[in-house]
């Protein structure tokens, strides 16, 4: 369900986030085709849970002892940006 919910995601932020998912040494190429973006989106949203509520993210962070990466973005993470 989460995969379906987040199967689409934005362009520029994806380049950053997906590269972080892979390895830090893998820098983004100058131009990424739509197919590549689409595939990476799928990878990102299927491997990472994205919270929409900061309160819930904080609760999970407290439980897991992790820091929070909280992104302000123009558009929806599961749609156009």
């Amino acid at each position: 369900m989460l995969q379906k919910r987040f199967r689409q995601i934005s362009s520029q932020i994806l380049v950053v986030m997906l590269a972080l998912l892979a390895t830090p040494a893998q820098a983004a190429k100058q131009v990424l085709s739509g197919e590549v973006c689409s595939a990476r989106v799928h990878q990102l949203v299927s491997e990472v849970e994205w919270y929409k509520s900061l309160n819930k993210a904080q609760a999970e962070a407290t439980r897991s002892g992790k820091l929070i990466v909280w992104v302000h973005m123009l558009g929806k993470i599961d749609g156009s940006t």
Partner: protein
Amino acid sequence: MLKDDFVVGYRNIENQKYAGASGKHKPDETAVDTTNGAGPHNLQIFVLATDGTILTCLPGYWHAEDLAHEFGLAKQLNAIWVNPELSLADKKAQFAKLQMGHVATHDPGMSKRSHMQGFDLKYEAKKPASDFFYNSRAVNPATGDTPARNVKTVDIVMHERMAAHPFKPYERFDVAQYSDYGKPTYDKHEQYLDASGKIAPGADLASQPMIGNTPKAHPIKTQAKRTGSRVARTTVNHAVRYGIRALMR
């Protein structure tokens, strides 16, 4: 790194007054990378402690390796924030020191990736006291020209600005002011680029859908607003005329 080390979330700022504007891009359209800090009004990446305290905030796009480097700083800052043996004053002092000291850890590649783009630089040059210039008097106010050595890269300005906000709660952080630099509209026309990174022949850039704070992004709402204003104006005019006529009787 994201998956293992962080809890991740997002907020859509499309309807926030401080948000900028951009061409609207579908998730399966072409994307490009750009310079660090580009599009600061459209994207802000925070790292927060579990209690919502801001450890760092990166405005705009950042290359993955540079983002990872900054996330490392956030972890260091968190260790200070949760240290029960330090006073708040000590914590804040260390925050500022680590933020400013971090600039020295940026490798030449990161610095190179953090040069502000020409159109944003021209925009900053027209401001009376932009913090992107070491000496504002060395900027020609008419042309915006200044020696390259007078211009700070975004990675430096980001740390300078962040150092002024030590361990601030997220809800009290003025993100509009913090991320205010460069033009409010940022777009690279990604969906119209060919494999070489050039605008494809025949691309109709004028018809590109927009997102954010631009009337082009809300054509229906904008039209309704215009109609509403026209109706209000007409009503006021009629009322004034009626009132004058009534007074003359």
